[in-house]
């Protein structure tokens, strides 16, 4: 299984990368970690004319808090999240993602930007970021624009990115006291895509009431989705078993999983309920209230 032939460019600047993408439109593909792209090329499911290797473009790999945001460079590798003390301590939902995604070799090379741009309906990163008011920065020939995460995923393997644009950064609101999140993934074995996945991010006030809640689900449709009904069922209530049960039930009803080799629709729905509840419990414990 060898790829078709293609040209290869390794630009040293962001500007040059964007230029090549603009010149080639959808005949070009971006090569970051390659952990999704190269398998696709090997199976000859895609036949690009040119690969644009962005690994030398400076300034795209960072995980840091700046101002009132957590800012993540698109070229950050999955393992960077596993090893980051900041993530472990203040954004453990992303440690969860990094630990259930792929395997160690994949995590050494694969990037968060690549995973997002690949837009698999089972995307662990996509689902986890949907649990935040995340903003994605896309840079193209006409400059930078911000795409809110709610509008980023369109269809399986299709995003709002134009073919001339590069995803460069992800920003989420900085973690504050009372925030807690978790990502739980049901999978058949290590390295498998999510049968279902649930991402939860809560903001609790001093009395343990839910001030804010975002719940996102993986593998329940053509793209990761939010469960707004479940979110509403939580806000204003005390974080605890009754509220969680209600929210979990709602989330399972808002999802539209399909039966496939990973499980029947019925089972997946039931698991969304179980995993939503469990994720809420973990998020609450992490919120430390």
């Amino acid at each position, binding site marked *: *299984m*060898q*790829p*078709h*032939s*293609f*040209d*290869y*460019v*390794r630009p*040293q600047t962001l500007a040059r990368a964007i230029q090549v993408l603009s010149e080639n439109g959808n005949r070009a593909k971006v*090569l970051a970690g*390659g*952990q999704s792209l*190269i*398998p696709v*090329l*090997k*199976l000859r499911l895609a036949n690009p004319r040119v*690969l644009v*290797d962005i*690994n*030398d473009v400076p300034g795209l*790999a*960072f*995980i*840091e808090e700046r101002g009132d945001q957590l800012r993540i460079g698109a*070229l*950050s*590798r999955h*393992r*960077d999240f596993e*090893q*980051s*003390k*900041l993530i472990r301590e203040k954004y453990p939902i992303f440690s969860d993602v990094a630990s259930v995604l*792929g*395997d*160690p*070799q*994949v995590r*050494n*090379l694969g990037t968060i930007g690549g995973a997002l741009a690949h837009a698999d309906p089972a995307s662990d990163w996509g689902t986890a970021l949907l649990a935040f008011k995340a903003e994605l920065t896309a840079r193209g020939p006409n400059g930078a624009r911000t795409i809110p995460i709610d509008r980023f995923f369109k269809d399986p393997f299709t995003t709002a990115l134009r073919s001339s644009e590069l995803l460069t950064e992800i920003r989420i609101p900085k973690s504050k006291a009372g925030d807690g999140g978790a990502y739980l993934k049901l999978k058949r074995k*290590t*390295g498998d895509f999510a049968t279902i996945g649930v991402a939860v991010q809560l903001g609790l006030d001093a009395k343990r009431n839910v001030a804010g809640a975002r719940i996102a689900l993986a593998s329940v449709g053509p793209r990761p989705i939010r469960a707004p009904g479940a979110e509403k069922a939580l806000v204003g209530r005390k974080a605890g078993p009754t509220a969680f049960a209600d929210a979990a039930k709602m989330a399972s009803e808002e999802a539209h999983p399909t039966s496939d080799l990973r499980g029947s629709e019925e089972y997946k729905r039931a698991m969304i309920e179980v995993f939503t509840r469990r994720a809420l419990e973990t998020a609450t414990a992490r919120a430390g209230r």
Partner: protein
Amino acid sequence: MATKRKKASPKRKSVRPENGSHMITVAVNGRKFTRAVEPRVLLVDFIRDDLRLTGTHVGCDTSHCGACTVLLDGRAVKSCTMLAVQADGREITTIEGLSEHGRLHPIQEAFKAHHGLQCGFCTPGVVLAALELLRVENAPSEDRIRTAISGNICRCTGYQGIVDSVAAAGEMMRPRKG
């Protein structure tokens, strides 16, 4: 802690000779090789076919089995899921690079002592994946070991001999006190 990716050094733009090939220089097991290679060529095929280092194996098509694992600047990667051109300016360690002057590396000794291999096909990949772990943690828990090799499939050993070998290797690699 923000982490910065180690930059390839020296930085080179890929040069393009006429037939679509690129000249690349890759350091493999401490030796530099300069070759013309087409962009489509996978790193594993470059290692096996161009450099004739056949200790790195191909076991699947979908980047699951890990038999092709090499160390890229010290990190375990699946060489079937990388292009050779991406390795330009980088350092690769294959299984052939572990023993020095005919002496086995401690991890190789440990695999022998604890029956960490049977047919030997997955072995180069799993040894290198484990080595990445042991270079940062020389007393890993069993769970850490199993996670470190979870990108390598073995059909013969049931993994137990491998896990015990890696634990023993860690012990051997610990700096002697006093």
